[in-house]
């Protein structure tokens, strides 16, 4: 039972990126602006025609940073909304852009995201939180707990998890925007430094900086704005959920991956398709275990079997369900505000047939799934 009633069909008509990596010379606004300019150029739509913008970012860089960023493009007076939703901040901005258009309020919208991040382990709680005494507020330790349990329950060997990271680097080696492009072996991954057993360094995404942007437009307004219909990609579903007790998350596990499932089911229902129709997927692989569990929560494989699909090469480029075709968080890196829109960027690029050496033959349906603290999950389905 869906509580959402999309009214108008919405298309992504432009996508843009600022490369992911470390950019000490550039501030948050620089990263964001470059991505926005890139997306506007891709769409052919001038900034003056954009009626609303949503900016995803997590770390604080001053009030109304979205407004000061876009002021560089011209003070057009449009509403600009700053969005913080943890690792899903960018995809939440995209979700809002979609709903702003499908509801009939706007003809177009800009969703963009960027991040400048400190290095070191990522914590979720505030500096003076009791969590600091307890030692559980540690993003990668959380993934390590899931990984240990997953390996115990499914019998997945460490090598299968390492393969997720090897695959990510193989894809990233063909992506000029990626933070980490050098390839490595399963042995390299397993022999890298332990962060939180059994998770090794090369199984954790780097904390990276970067920017991403997307221009969305109502399908019925494409001609009004002179947009090239042949490169427009349809948003078939946009789902955003928070913790759902009665989802499969009701195992009470603090790091249950199955909280993705309700968002996935909602998205499949909205799109009128099932997991069997999905050609490519971008999922939240902040750690190797994340990719496996998100694949399962999206029902792309049965629960407990994504590690086998990975070992068999089914999730690699050339496999039957290619996952994280641009290198994912593991190789692109993870600027929180940008990652969700980066997934949309890759999906659109693939569905347009413009992914160059990474191109998946005949990709028509792509899923982009992003997770964040607070059990935030977004699932977007894009179709050609």
């Amino acid at each position, binding site marked *: 039972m869906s509580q959402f009633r999309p009214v108008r069909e919405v298309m992504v008509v432009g996508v843009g990126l600022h490369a992911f990596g470390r950019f000490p010379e550039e501030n948050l606004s620089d990263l964001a602006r470059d991505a926005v300019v890139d997306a506007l150029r891709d769409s052919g739509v001038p900034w003056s025609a954009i009626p609303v913008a949503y900016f995803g970012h997590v770390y604080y860089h001053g009030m109304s940073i979205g407004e000061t960023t876009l002021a560089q493009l011209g003070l057009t007076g449009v509403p600009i909304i700053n969005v913080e939703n943890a690792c899903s901040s960018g995809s939440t901005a995209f979700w809002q852009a979609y709903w702003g258009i499908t509801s009939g309020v706007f003809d177009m919208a800009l969703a963009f995201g960027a991040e400048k991040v400190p290095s070191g382990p990522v914590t979720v709680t505030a500096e003076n939180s009791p969590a*600091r005494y*307890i030692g*559980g507020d*540690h993003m990668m330790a959380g993934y390590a707990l899931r990984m240990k349990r997953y390996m115990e329950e499914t019998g997945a060997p460490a090598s299968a998890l390492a393969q997720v990271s090897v695959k990510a680097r193989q894809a990233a080696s063909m992506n000029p925007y990626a933070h980490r492009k050098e390839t490595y072996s399963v042995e390299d991954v397993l022999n890298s430094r332990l962060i939180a057993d059994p998770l090794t360094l090369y199984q954790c995404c780097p904390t990276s900086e970067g920017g991403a942007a997307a221009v969305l437009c109502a399908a019925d307004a494409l001609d009004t704005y002179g947009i090239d219909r042949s490169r427009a990609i349809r948003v078939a579903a946009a789902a955003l959920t928070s913790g759902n007790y009665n989802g499969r998350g*009701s195992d009470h596990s603090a790091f249950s991956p199955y909280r993705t499932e309700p968002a996935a089911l909602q998205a499949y229902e909205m799109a009128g398709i099932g997991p069997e129709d999905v050609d490519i997927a971008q999922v939240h692989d902040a750690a190797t275990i994340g990719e496996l569990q998100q694949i399962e929560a999206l029902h792309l494989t049965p629960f407990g079997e994504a590690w086998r699909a990975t070992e068999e090469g089914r999730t690699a480029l050339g496999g039957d369900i290619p996952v994280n075709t641009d290198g994912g968080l593991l190789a692109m890196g993870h600027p929180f505000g940008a990652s969700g829109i980066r997934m949309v960027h890759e999906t659109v690029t693939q569905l347009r047939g413009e992914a160059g050496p990474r191109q998946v033959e005949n990709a028509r349906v792509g899923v982009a799934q992003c997770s964040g603290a607070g059990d935030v999950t977004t699932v977007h389905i894009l179709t050609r």
Partner: protein
Amino acid sequence: MVISVDERCLRLTDESGERGALLGMRCLQCGVHVFGPATFCQSCTSPDLEEVELSADGTLYSYTIVRVPPSGWPGPVPYVLGETELPEGPHVLAEVIDCAHEDLRVGMPVTLALQTVGMDGIEGSERAVYKWRPV
């Protein structure tokens, strides 16, 4: 008198901070328990909740040995972080103490243990913190 690390989650029952109980809320409508405070039931959203002391004994649902600690961590490095499943249902994350790494097992029984911890060089920062210890 030692202060609880979080009075909504851990009630101390002696002045030394060595004894206490984890606190939770039980739903009078559907019976679901949550660890820590809640205003309405997480499962059925009923407002009819009562505060309860949760069981001190549970089983280790998962664990990890944290080699790179989060900023502000006042304990030893590495440390063992355990996710313990209580008989009432909730999972509670805390350090596992007094256990050699090679003896850690998923499913092993653990019990609540309190330790007083202070933040390095910060006066008055001592708190009684809940931990897990093998039975």
